[in-house]
């Protein structure tokens, strides 16, 4: 979430009413922003990403003014046509086809105002236009530009100008390579066949959105009084909001706004390709009073609801008195529910009573979870300590340290963007984490008998060839089918002390399976993590018809080589049981 620094004096003047320190803090929190800190000069607030219009002193002050009752309804905004045109050509890159622009005159800029404007431009860039991926915003001193202006596509090699902060003329490719902004944002446009540029009537290249302005005509400072402001990008909707937000802020800063006529030669937008910017006419939305009351659990009258909306800066349509007028800078009103939310904020979250409805619903614990809790209790009864480890582990520990081979390695689900080698894969079985615990607890008392029941993931052997064609969605089976990752619950248990041996592990697993009434046998098997001849597979034979039985667990003495890999100096016997499988068998047996 973006944090903005507000000049407190400017903000308080805009808010129109001076509040006590306490009240100010309280109101800032309850309008829906996070107050980070506040002193005599500055207020630092986090603005939620749905309110980019509050990223400046002017925007914040405007919202606050009505919220605290110093004003109500739609905020004033006026503009006059400049008579200028901006031609938007079809030669533009298809990735960057839109532009909107306007003029702000009569600004008395000083260092503070320049800071405010630049902060707004930057914060909008970070949020609304997603680090320039969804649009770029440019500011220019008007006096250096000759209208009409063209926004068009040119081959990168043919684009030559002096970029901001440089003294030497460069072509577009050189800018991508050498200019800091080119390096930072070049990834957005480097694959385009043509790049987008603003060119004025003197054929001067003004800028190359979304990267950089020209040093000659695209640099504002404290002497600037008249601004040309443009927004460009792949999404007309987004850049329109950005431009509206800037226009509203400059207007509140004291500027006079002049509109520019956009002329799109392919006529894909506006009326015949033409429209004036900024268009600050509010959007209309019907107010569903019944819906708002029902969702909030209130019984407010129309007038009250209208009043709350006006408190949040909305206008009320005078003609039918049942439509909200949404300011052109509010990008967050998608649905009736967003009006409802603003009514709730104006009503005050702290003014709602809370109540639990008397609705009878039947509680139900997940059956597998319930089963797992019983199994955990059995292990606690046997004196085991329960561990809780991360699902994210690493391939080295899951495979190499356990002396496993390629086949097991290939089943490990790895992360694409792991931050460290230590945490780069999802655990494929439980024992490696438990051995790590033993290696980290050598100073603690023995015996160290530990267990953990948790989720492990493996690449599914093969995605199901046949898709289910059922017309209902069964998510539980679908997720694995969709992701290609199988997940099971596994129980890992280790017994570690100087006299640990196979018998003790066998006693424990036989006791568990006895309680579950699952007849079983242990057959010898080879497994590289265990001592040869001291490792077996536990096979459960649920009924006589199933002669094969199901392999539900490995059990054995951990190989000294594996212990050495973990730096463990005490013998360990262990087993790992597929809890999901056992649970399924018990359920099928019912």
């Amino acid at each position, binding site marked *: 979430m973006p944090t903005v620094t507000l000049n407190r004096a400017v903000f308080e003047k805009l808010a129109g009413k001076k509040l006590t320190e306490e009240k100010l803090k309280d109101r800032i929190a309850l309008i829906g922003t996070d107050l980070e800190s506040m002193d005599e000069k500055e207020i630092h607030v986090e603005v939620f990403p749905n309110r980019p219009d509050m990223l400046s002193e002017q925007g914040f002050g405007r919202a606050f003014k009505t919220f605290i009752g110093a004003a109500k309804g739609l905020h004033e905004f006026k503009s006059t046509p400049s008579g200028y045109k901006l031609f938007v050509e079809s030669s533009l890159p298809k990735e960057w086809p839109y532009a909107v622009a306007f003029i702000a005159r009569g600004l008395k800029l000083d260092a503070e105002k320049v800071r405010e404007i630049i902060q707004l431009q930057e914060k909008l860039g970070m949020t609304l236009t997603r680090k320039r991926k969804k649009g770029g915003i440019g500011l220019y001193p008007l006096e250096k530009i000759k209208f009409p202006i063209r926004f068009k596509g040119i081959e990168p090699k043919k684009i030559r100008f002096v970029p901001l902060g440089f003294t030497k003329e460069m072509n577009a490719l050189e800018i991508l390579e050498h200019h800091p902004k080119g390096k930072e944002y070049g990834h957005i446009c480097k694959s385009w066949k043509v790049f987008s540029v603003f060119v004025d009537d003197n054929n001067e290249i003004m800028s190359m959105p979304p990267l950089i302005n020209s040093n000659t005509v695209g640099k504002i400072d404290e002497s600037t009084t008249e601004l040309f402001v443009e927004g460009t990008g792949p999404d007309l909707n987004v850049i329109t909001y950005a431009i509206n937000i800037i226009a509203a802020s400059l207007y509140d800063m004291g500027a006079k706004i002049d509109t520019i006529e956009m002329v799109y030669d392919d006529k894909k937008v506006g009326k015949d390709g033409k429209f004036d910017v900024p268009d600050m006419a509010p959007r209309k939305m019907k107010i569903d009073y019944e819906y708002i009351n029902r969702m909030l659990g209130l019984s407010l009258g129309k007038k009250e609801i209208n009043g709350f909306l006006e408190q949040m800066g909305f206008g009320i349509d005078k003609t039918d008195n049942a439509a909200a007028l949404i300011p052109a800078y509010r990008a967050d009103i*998608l649905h009736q529910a967003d009006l409802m939310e603003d009514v709730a904020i104006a009503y005050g979250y702290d003014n*709602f009573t809370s109540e639990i409805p008397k609705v009878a619903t039947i509680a139900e614990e997940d059956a597998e979870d319930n089963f797992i809790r019983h199994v955990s209790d059995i292990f606690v009864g046997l004196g085991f*300590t*329960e561990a809780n480890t991360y699902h994210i582990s690493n391939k080295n520990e899951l495979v190499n340290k356990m002396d496993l081979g390629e086949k097991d390695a290939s089943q490990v689900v790895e*992360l694409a963007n792991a931050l460290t080698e230590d945490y780069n894969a*999802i655990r494929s079985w439980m024992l490696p984490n438990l051995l790590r615990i033993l290696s980290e607890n050598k100073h603690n008392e023995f015996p160290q008998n530990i267990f953990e029941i948790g989720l492990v993931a493996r690449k599914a052997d093969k995605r199901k060839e046949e898709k289910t064609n059922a017309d209902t969605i069964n998510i539980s089976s679908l997720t694995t089918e969709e992701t290609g990752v199988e997940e099971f619950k596994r129980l890992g248990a280790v017994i570690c002390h100087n006299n640990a041996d196979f018998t003790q592990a066998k006693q424990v697993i036989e006791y568990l399976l006895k309680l579950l009434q699952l007849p079983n046998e242990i057959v010898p098997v080879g497994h590289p993590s265990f001592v040869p001849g001291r490792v077996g597979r536990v096979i459960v034979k649920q009924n006589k018809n199933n002669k094969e039985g199901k392999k539900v667990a490995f059990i054995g003495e951990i190989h000294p080589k594996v212990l050495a890999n973990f730096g463990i100096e005490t013998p360990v016997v262990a087993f790992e049981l597929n809890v999901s499988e056992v649970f399924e068998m018990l359920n099928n047996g019912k």
Partner: protein
Amino acid sequence: MADKSNIDQEIKAIIDNLHPLERKIFPLLDRFSKLEDLVKESKLQEVEVLRALQWLQNKKLIILKQDVKELAVLGENGRKYKENNLPERRFLDALKDAKEHDINEVIDAAKISKEESNVSIGILKVKNVISVRKDNEKNVLLVQILDAGKKLLKEGFDEEKLLEREFPFEVKILNEEEKKCLQYLTKRKGLVEVDLYKIRAASLTDLGKKALKAGISDEEVVDRITQNMLKTGNWQEKRFRSYDIKAPVSRVFGGRRHFMNEAIDYVKRIWLDLGFKEMKGNIVQPSFWNFDALFTPQDHPAREMQDTFFIKNPNLADIPSNAASKELVKNIKETHEHGRDTGSTGWRYNWNIEEARKNVLRTHTTVLSAQTLARLKESDLPAKFFSVGTVFRNETLDWKHLFEFHQTDCIVVDPNANFKNLLGYLKDFFKKMGYEKVRFRPAYFPYTNCSTEVEVLHPINKKWMELGGAGIFRSEVVVPLLGKDIPVLAWGLGLERILMDYYEFNDLRDIYKNDLKLIRESKLFLR
């Protein structure tokens, strides 16, 4: 008098408390004090006697002392020479006629070995009591006693005098000259050795003397109650020894659940008590379920590499995977793009199936809520669901960040549900978690309206702690999944901060450190 009877009481209590081993040893202490004597006399093992002495000392009946003594001990040759005289004495004896003798004759006469003769000649020469000369013609050594030798024979050797003592004896009883002599003897093979001995001895304290005087009855006291006693009933003739129940005992530890799981069980209990059904699901999820189904636009920062863990292989999910999900994918695409039939404008962008296919580690358990809605039928309403599960964020591990942690998510799907109910459920939950004061601040999440951050007042430090987010699911979420716009209250709360507070951890990582001592000894999760 009162004092005396108090002391008597005290002594009686002490005597009653005596362990059978103590009862055997204690009466011996007025006659014996050394450990070895006590062992001999009591016929117990040395460790048993030591244990009894230790206990008696704990009861302040005796004081145990330990001395280190230097003892001179006779070796094998020492014993032989003590009986048959030292070889040098015998050598000199064979010369007592004052004539010059062939050395071989002397050896024969003295009945000593060649080696002993060499030693003897060495010693006697040093003492200057014989003369030795070589007869070159006959090629033999000739020896003769001197006057000093005769005198020595009469007076006796210092070494002999030392050997005459009763061994072993303490070195410290010797005078300086005798000590020198002893040292000299220790250098000779197998004669005398000086060993260090630890000698433990007990001496009675005043209290001990009084207790002994009071007398230990011979009556048999019972230490352990045995099966045999109970079977035969002969315990009736016996007296039970009193135990020192204040004596410290060694610690034991039992089996123990991990405290996080104890807390999870408690949280589950709360939701179950409130009539919620449990939701479960996978940790690897398609972005479609984790984000798109929850109306999170595809360019949302949460979907970037630095926030979410993506899966390397299989990196893409198979979506849509069947006819029903094909319909759902279409509905969600249209809802994102223009709102479809939800009454929303949508996000107004081109929704891309490829973005939705990316497999991720779920970033919130809200993904399970979305899947539950997709499964729910209208006839199941009203319905309430909860989940407790692990969620993942691409964070570097440090004291206040984990890359995986626990969330509890709930949804209430009820045509009559409203915002006030949402606040009600949350307040009730936190009250049961030990937080009386809860406040709600406006917030923003892409998938809820009336979004709120839930904060609780810490009962001790009086600071507000942010513990989760809540709201009413947007129509853009509900309509495509459920097929109808019905109020769905939703919340997702983090558990680790509550745990950190409860267990007074300063570092989040302590929760998953799996230090066995910490797990075994942590207080129970009781609220």
